Each structure stands twice: as C-alpha cells, then as structure tokens.
C-alpha cells in the first residue's frame, strides 16, 4: 500500500501554499515532515487526507483517488490541532463525546488503546472541548490518531503544549503501534531534536515544495559541518553542495551535503569536521542564510 501525492498545488488567494509538490509515502514507516512556519505542511497533510481540496494535482492511495473516496478514507486519519476545527468557542461537547464520535467513524478504532491513553495522560473525559488547555487538546489529537487504527496516520504538531513525561509516553506508544508493522505515520513537528530518533525518513518542505525526502540516518551521515581557515574550507568544499555559510574574520564554517558514500578530502588541510544534528541540517537547508554551489 502506498500513498502518492502527484503534482499537488494549492493556492489561497494570491498565496501559493503548495507548488506542484510530489511525494510517495510507503507502507510501514514513520516520516518526519519538517518545514518552517507557512511552508505548507498542514496544507499538504489536509490535502493528502481529503480534508482540503487541491487546486491542482491529485492524491492516490494504491492508484485510487482519495478525494470523496470512502474506501480510501477508511485508511487515512489526519488528526490535526483541534483548536482550528472542533474547539470552536461554541463547541461545548465533552471529551468522551468527541471520542465516541471518533470510535463510530473510524472502522478500525482501538477502544482499549484509547482508554489506556486517557488514563495515562490523566485526561478528564467529562471536560468540555472548549475548556481544554493546549496540552490537553494535543492529548485528544494523539488519542484520536493512535486509536484510529488507520493505515496512514498524519499528526500535525502532536506534542505542542505537552509536558516532557507525556511526550516521552507519546513516542513510546507511537513506536509500539509502528512495531506492529501495519501503519505509516507522518508527523509534522517543530520540535525536531526530540523526534529525530523516531523518524525513519524525513521530508523537508520549503516554500511549498518538497526539498528533500530521505532516510534520517543516511541524511545525517552525509551532512557535515566543516570549519577552519577560509582557504582550507574552500578547498575541501570545492565542487560540493555547500549550505549555511558563516564567516568570522579569516575563519569560515559551512554545512556540506555530500553525495551518498562520499568523504571530504581533507588531506593537507587544517579543517575541523563534525556531524550535525537533524535540526542543524534543517536550519542549514531551509534557513535564511545564503548558500552557494
């Protein structure tokens, strides 16, 4: 089973949120969807789950269009930030009622898991949705996503407002569900460092386009930070993809994206090479600093 996002564009008025974006999401993986604010992450996930209509392009699940397709939508769950949907000031339904609706609408709902998560998070079932704190809203989002049992589950900023204990617990349950081998998770987050170990692959979205989709380990292996005297750094980086240049006097530091299997040639050069974290890689690739090749 695979989800194909084919040349999808989305335009809001004059703003282009997604620009001919194409992606292929495979079965049984955890993807990290990373991008700056306004990069198009939420729009992408909402179009992929048919919650939003694309201006152009299509989303296919095993070759069948997802839009208004009941069969396909059974296998997709996009649990988004509740504040923008259900927690309208007029929405006074209780948490238990919201979850009851979810249990009816998701055919593979795991009631046992939902109960376990509610207990573990210490969530009050009788609280009204419009009275929930940010962290509690995230808890409900997580419960719906994990208990939905959907093959393709998308989570938009799931850990916003959660304390560290709840976040750890979320990652644990996420990995448990993933270990069953039947589900694919796409997690959009700004808390990159914490989630980096969980992501099997990362997708960088920048200005409405997919900048990169790669296995996390492979990306981290081939991205290095090189610093030293300017002429030495330039010599080592000659012909390589260089990002995020920093200069201080005669010293220079750059982030280099090597080709798979490639090693920087530092023979006779006084440079310091160190690996980068996923967050640093993201900043180097999508930050404002100018890059050159």
């Amino acid at each position: 089973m695979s989800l194909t996002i084919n040349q999808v564009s989305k335009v809001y008025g004059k703003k282009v949120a997604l620009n001919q974006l194409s992606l292929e999401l495979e079965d049984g993986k955890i993807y990290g969807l990373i991008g700056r604010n306004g990069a198009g992450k939420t729009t992408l996930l909402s179009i992929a789950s048919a919650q939003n209509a694309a201006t152009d392009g299509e989303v296919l699940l095993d070759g069948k269009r997802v839009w208004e397709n009941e069969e396909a939508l059974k296998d997709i769950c996009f649990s988004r930030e509740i504040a923008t949907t259900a927690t309208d000031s007029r929405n006074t339904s209780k948490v238990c009622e919201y979850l009851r609706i979810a249990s009816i609408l998701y055919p593979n709902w795991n009631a046992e898991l939902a109960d376990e998560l509610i207990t573990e998070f210490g969530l009050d079932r009788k609280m009204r949705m419009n009275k929930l704190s940010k962290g509690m809203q995230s808890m409900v989002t997580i419960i719906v996503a994990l208990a939905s049992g959907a093959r393709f589950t998308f989570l938009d900023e799931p850990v916003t407002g959660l304390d560290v204990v709840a976040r750890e617990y979320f990652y644990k349950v996420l990995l448990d569900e993933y270990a069953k081998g039947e589900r694919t998770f796409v997690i959009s987050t700004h808390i990159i460092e914490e989630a980096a170990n969980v992501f099997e692959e990362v997708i960088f979205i920048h200005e409405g386009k997919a900048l990169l989709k790669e296995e996390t380990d492979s990306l981290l292996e081939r991205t290095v930070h090189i610093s030293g005297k300017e002429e030495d750094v330039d010599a080592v980086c000659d012909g390589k993809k260089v990002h995020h240049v920093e200069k201080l006097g005669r010293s220079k530091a750059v982030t280099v994206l090597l080709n798979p299997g490639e090693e920087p040639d530092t023979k006779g050069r006084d440079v310091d090479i160190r690996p980068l974290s996923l967050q640093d890689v993201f900043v180097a690739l999508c930050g404002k600093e100018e890059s050159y090749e």
Partner: protein
Amino acid sequence: MSKVFRIMKADFRSTASVYLRSLMMVAFFFIYFRIFCGGTFINLGMLLIWSQAIMIYMLSMQDISNSIPTYIGMGCTRKSVSIAIWIRWFLLLMISIGIYALVCAILYPEMLTIKLFITQISTFMMMLGLNSVIMVIRDRNQWIGVVFGCLMAAGIGIGTVAFTKTTESAGIIAQKIGSVSDGIFSTSFFIAVAVLLFGIVFHTIRLKKYSVR
C-alpha cells in the same frame, strides 16, 4: 455499516440534546401561556413555529461550527455528510409534526385538519431552506450571515405578531386556513418546497468543496 448511518449514529446525541432543549423551551412557554394567559390553540401553533425556528437555527449552527468539520475531519465524504444531514432534517420534521399532532389531538381535537398539518410542514420547509442559505453565507462571512439571520428572525417575528393580531380567538386560525382558497394554499406549499430545494442545492454545492479549517 454504511458511512451515512455511522454519521447519523454519531450525530444522534447532539441532535437529541438540541431538540430536547428547544422542546423544553416551547413546553415552558406553552405551560406559561396556559396558566397565565388562558393559552389557546394559536399559542400552540405560534410556539411550535418558534420552537422549530430555534431548533433549526441551533442545529445548523452546530453543523457549521462543529459537526461538519468533525465528520469530514474523521474521514467521511462530503456526500455522506450531506445525505446524513438531510435525512436527519426529514426525521426531525416527522417528529415535530408527530408531536404537534399528539398535543393537538389531546388539547384541541377539533382543530386537527390536513390543511393545518400542511401549513406546519410548509413552515418547517421554508425555515429550513432559508436557514440553509443563511448558514452557507454565515460560514463564508459571519457578519453577512448574522444580518441575514436577523432579517429572517425579524420577518418571522413580524409575521407572527401580525397573524396573532388578526386572529382574535382560537377557532379563527383554523377558519382562516380553511377559508384560504386551494390555489393560494397549494402555491404557498410549492413555494415552501422550492425554498427548501434551493437551500438543499445551495448547501450541497457549498459542501462539495468544503475544506476543514
């Protein structure tokens, strides 16, 4: 279980809650009128219309702000949501008329006429059709929707007062309806059907490309 049925099952409690609240409201006012104002058949008819208006408005508000985004957000197609909502309205219409018939049969059996029922059904359809249009506009632009809503409420209010003023006793309302020519009666019924159909089409077209925000 089909998705439409699932949506209706999910929607049942909130619909029942809103419906009961509007019924309680009308029951309270009806009892008040019976005790303190010597309540008449006309009170019952007018109160029923008002309770229907309140119920339709409250449920529509719930649909727009909560139910529709929740159901579509949980993997339902717009078509299923649309069908479920309209089936629900049809059932509510049947229940409303049933309750009306029951109360009428107990308190004012002499007033039970086919024409009266058709009048009630027409009113319901007319309000539902207009309300659907208002809700669609409101979803796009809150303030224009509110202005339209107020105009509709004012229209119903003025109509109610004018109608009440011109009917002095309980029997006159039935006589009035009874004396309306068949031509006018059927025209007003078809206008109500047309307004309802317009509301359904307008609402369905809007829902076709609905995006969860």
